[in-house]
């Protein structure tokens, strides 16, 4: 199943930034990550959808921060010293996603990525791009564009 040949156009190597949520490790495409910030106070926005934690000021720019745990259907957790806001670009927008911690950047060959189980009817199941074994643990790869619907992305544009 796995292709052990060297990197080629048929089997490109992709880099993934990994982060932790609720003791599991997730990966997002490094090309979509702009920077990783320590947790700073997030100003709530009245009337915002439940998946929006609020906004932060990033060098003069307003960035909306998404409650990733809520989006993934996970229970909320305390903010710790390891909590990070990952600034990403998805659907032509820059947003922040709150994660428990950021781990590392891993290199994965496309052939190493396996399809995720497709048994979930939950909307959130759509943004699982695949899974991959790396360093003895299972990485869950997330497709950020699908983390929200087009309408939700459009709503975010308004903040």
């Amino acid at each position: 199943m796995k292709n052990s040949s060297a990197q080629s156009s048929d089997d490109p190597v992709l880099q993934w930034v990994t982060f932790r949520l609720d003791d599991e490790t997730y990966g997002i495409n490094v090309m979509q990550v702009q920077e990783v910030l320590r947790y700073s106070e997030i100003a709530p926005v009245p009337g915002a959808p439940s998946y929006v934690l609020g906004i932060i000021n990033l060098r003069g720019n307003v960035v909306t921060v998404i409650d990733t745990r809520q989006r993934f259907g996970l229970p909320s957790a305390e903010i710790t010293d390891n909590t990070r806001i990952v600034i990403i670009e998805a659907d032509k927008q820059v947003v922040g996603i709150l994660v428990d911690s950021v781990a590392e950047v891993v290199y994965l060959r496309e052939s190493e990525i396996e399809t995720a189980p497709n048994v979930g009817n939950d909307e959130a199941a759509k943004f699982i791009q695949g899974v991959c074994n790396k360093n003895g643990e299972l990485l869950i790869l997330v497709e950020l564009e699908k983390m929200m619907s087009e309408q939700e992305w459009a709503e975010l544009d308004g903040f």
Partner: protein
Amino acid sequence: MMKTNKSQTALQNYLDGLLQEAEIEQFNEPKPVMLEEKPLAPVLLPTFTTPKIVVEQQVETKIDIEMQPELQPVVDEKPAWSQQPFECLLFDVAGLTLAVPLICLGSIYQLSEDDITPIFAQPEWFVGIMSTPAGNLKVLDTARWVMPERYNPELRKDFSFVISIDGHEWGLAVNQVRNSILLRPDEVKWRLKRGQRAWLAGTVIEHMCALLDVEALAKLITDKDKRVTVDKSL
């Protein structure tokens, strides 16, 4: 000893339920021939004195739709392996003993903590993914499939093994693996028309166990897998 009693009680209740519903169906379907042959006799409701009741052909148990993982197609025949004596592995799930033909099994993996990675936004019967030397296994909460009506989430803590299904990327989470037995086809009360519980090939009273049709189970899961894939691509 306590565990054995619990297991037997659970199976007995389970089988009693199937038998009871089969009897009710039989009760509701009197044979018209009897009335024609004895027109002067008082009209009697059929009795249950027949020594052998063909349970499997008539059983349709009621399952809570919310809990049921799958709308199941009718399986209308015995599995291919049922034509001659076959070896089965016995294992326990939520107090019920299940038998699976060895020919349908892949490997047995002992579970330790953190072996299974849960995936968010999946149905409750999907436990998670387990990495094995043979690749990633999608692990099914067997208890929720087999006995959804008496499922208790606490049972999940007692999973000790995952049994992989030969030729599929699915594995069954089970509480305990027991011994293997050799079954003759005539020892099994086969279910020939299977609507609900298409995965239940039959029951083996002598061993107080339910016999799984693993292929039918795997087909139910993979069909669902494919259906959701199509839905997601829309």
